């Protein structure tokens, strides 16, 4: 299932400290384009913190987070961009952004990184459809001439809104939410809310989709459905996915590459098969010291 490609995201020496606590410690990994990369680790390992650093919600204490759009050749400009002190550069063949320098809304707007949250954050008092239109705020804002043309009722805005509605409808179709389009998001069942959050993120036309435990709280059937959708959008839409997941079956089934964190430190990285048999990973998940792993493995029959 391996999808090839060059990296879209490069995280290098990422460190995040909260006072004395080192939540992420010198973490480096890459997200390959068109692939699904999973970030796993025990509770409190620092996974959500990594997401918050990538999406600009936290300013990392140290490290570089670079995102590419377009041709892989733009990577050659990385060092120059870093030295220039700018946030990003746009070339005819592609663009490069240093996410640690950008505020959260620009990471979404310019670098096109979309995310979901571990505890679902929907606009619960707005309808499902409205949620998806809010996600298309920036292009619609432009089409409405920063509200001026829109308020005067210019036709250009009307057609842009129609296009936005079509896009919303197509995503609702894919996520099986079309029948609930006019219901308030807060009234949806839990599983549907999770799917809606992913659909909303997809409406921003991302190049990188970061999903924080998308399968948490889903039953096995819902979880399997979600996996299928994720695999499909990864293939169909030119997009890369970075996901945090606790459910090992999900991780092993759909991801191309796995990064394992424990206490903020990367303890393993690679294809699912390599990670599965890594002694350190097993130790971290079973909560024992490295030396005792063989013993424990034997006792649980691995």
């Amino acid at each position, binding site marked *: 299932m391996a999808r090839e490609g060059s990296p879209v995201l490069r995280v290098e020496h990422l460190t995040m400290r909260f006072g004395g606590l080192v939540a992420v410690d010198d973490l480096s990994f890459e997200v390959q384009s068109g692939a699904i990369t999973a970030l796993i680790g025990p509770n409190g390992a620092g996974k959500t913190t990594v997401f918050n650093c990538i*999406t600009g*919600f936290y300013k990392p204490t140290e490290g570089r987070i670079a995102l590419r759009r377009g041709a892989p050749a733009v990577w050659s400009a990385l060092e120059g961009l870093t030295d220039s002190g700018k946030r990003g550069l746009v070339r005819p063949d592609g663009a490069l952004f240093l996410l640690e320098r950008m505020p*959260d*809304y*620009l990471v*979404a*707007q310019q670098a096109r990184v*979309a*995310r979901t*949250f571990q505890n679902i*954050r*929907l*606009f*619960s*008092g*707005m*309808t499902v*459809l*409205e949620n998806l*239109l*809010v*996600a*298309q*705020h*920036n292009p*619609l*804002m432009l089409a*409405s001439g*920063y*509200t001026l043309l*829109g*308020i005067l009722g210019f036709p250009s*805005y009307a057609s842009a809104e129609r296009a936005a*509605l079509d896009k919303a*409808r197509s995503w609702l179709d894919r996520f099986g939410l*079309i029948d609930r*389009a*006019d*219901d*308030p998001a*807060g*009234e949806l069942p839990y599983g549907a809310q999770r799917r809606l959050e992913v659909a*909303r*993120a997809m409406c*921003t036309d991302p190049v990188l989709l970061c999903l924080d435990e998308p399968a948490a709280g889903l039953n096995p059937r819902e979880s399997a459905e979600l996996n299928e959708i994720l695999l499909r959008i990864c293939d169909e839409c030119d997009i890369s996915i970075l996901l945090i997941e606790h459910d090992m079956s999900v991780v092993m089934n759909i991801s191309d590459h796995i990064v394992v964190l424990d206490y903020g430190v990367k303890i393993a990285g690679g294809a699912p098969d390599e990670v599965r048999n890594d002694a350190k990973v097993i130790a971290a998940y079973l909560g024992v010291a490295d030396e005792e792993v063989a013993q424990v493995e034997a006792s649980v029959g691995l």
Partner: protein
Amino acid sequence: MAVLANSASEGGRAEKPILSREPNRFAAALREAAFTGLVSFGLFLPLIGFETVTNIRDELILRTRWPLLAAFVFIAAGGRFFYSFALAPWLARRAQKPVKPAAAWRGHFKKWFVPFAIGFVIAYPVIVILVTGWGGALKWIDNFGIQILIYMMLGWGLNIVVGLAGLLDLGYVAFYAVGAYSYALLAKNFGLSFWVLLPLAGILSSFWGILLGFPVLRLRGDYLAIVTLAFGEIIRLIIINWTALTNGYAGIISIPRPSFFGIPFNANDNGFAARFGLEFSPLYRVIFLYYIILALGLLTCFVTVRLRRLPVGRAWEALREDQIACRSLGINTTNTKLTAFAMGAMFAGFAGSFFAAREAFISPESFTFIESATVLSIVVLGGMGSQIGVAIAAIVMIGGTEILRQLNFLKEIFGATFDPTQYRMLLFGLALVLIMIWRPRGLIATREPSVFLKKRKAISVDLVQEGRG
């Protein structure tokens, strides 16, 4: 027969416990009434029981009003008794009954209400003149019509900030004051006309809105509320103390009034009445002012309704729902909040310049915190974010307090010294308490979605966030 017997025996069985419970309920209600009487006695003793009056030698003397106090306590205790003994059980029984589906007339009502209401407010001066005659119309158009419309417009303006964007603004009156003083000063010093200054006052107000917004909008919730409250006071204090510009407490007098396409409303030969061959009457100006504020109010409402369907309006509501989610979708929350603030301030500026033009006199007294509180309670009572709710609340709150001025028959009951307007604030507070108990989220407790695919379904406000700044 069997059924009858059955029901009879059932009734017989049910009879007993009720009978045995009856004195119990009576006693409980009596107890509650006594307690309420005690509390209201303590509360009303200083407020109603004593009164200070100036006697003929200009001395302040204390007088007691025991009968009036007794009447108040009796009303409170009696009301509580009625509620506990009769109303509460009745409400409980009613709540158990299944809810009937909405009748068909409701749909028609909803469809025709807005056109009917707009038609009514347009025809209002004519109706008033037909009903009360030429002499009595002034009061009804000026005190009721214009006064209510000013607050309705302010309510709609603040609704953008509080109801849609979820930013609690306790200093809204500041922008109203900026609008009023902009008009007054520019009109007096530069002789510019109302129609030039109206947009200018709006622009100046929204400029102040942005200026305040920049440092303040990174605060959230209670902090934002406190800072806006302070801003309202600061503007008032500047107006009071910058006497060289604003003439301080004395205020600005003889502010030019708007003219009808250059024709002034006065008794001169070139005045409105003389030009059109009519007998002079102050009513013409009042009617003209009524239509100006009506047009401004409708403009505010229309713009707000449209904005809600535009991306910026949806972003405001999304901001109220969840700011972090907004940021993750690439929405610049600071700018979005600023636009809401500036928009609300602009409408307050329009209303302020109209206010100055109507009164022809403004002073800092007109821009105290109580104005902000009144407008905010109109928004909250109406149901945050609801245009119709705000309109109804403005009519009830402002119309209600104006009506109190008219209730002269109360003097016959409570004696000639009884002044109903003194109880304005009491009733105002009472209305707020009652509505907050009865409908904690305001009169209109549904949100209309801004867009729909198949069917527009109203959303219960229980799901809608109130916003934390």
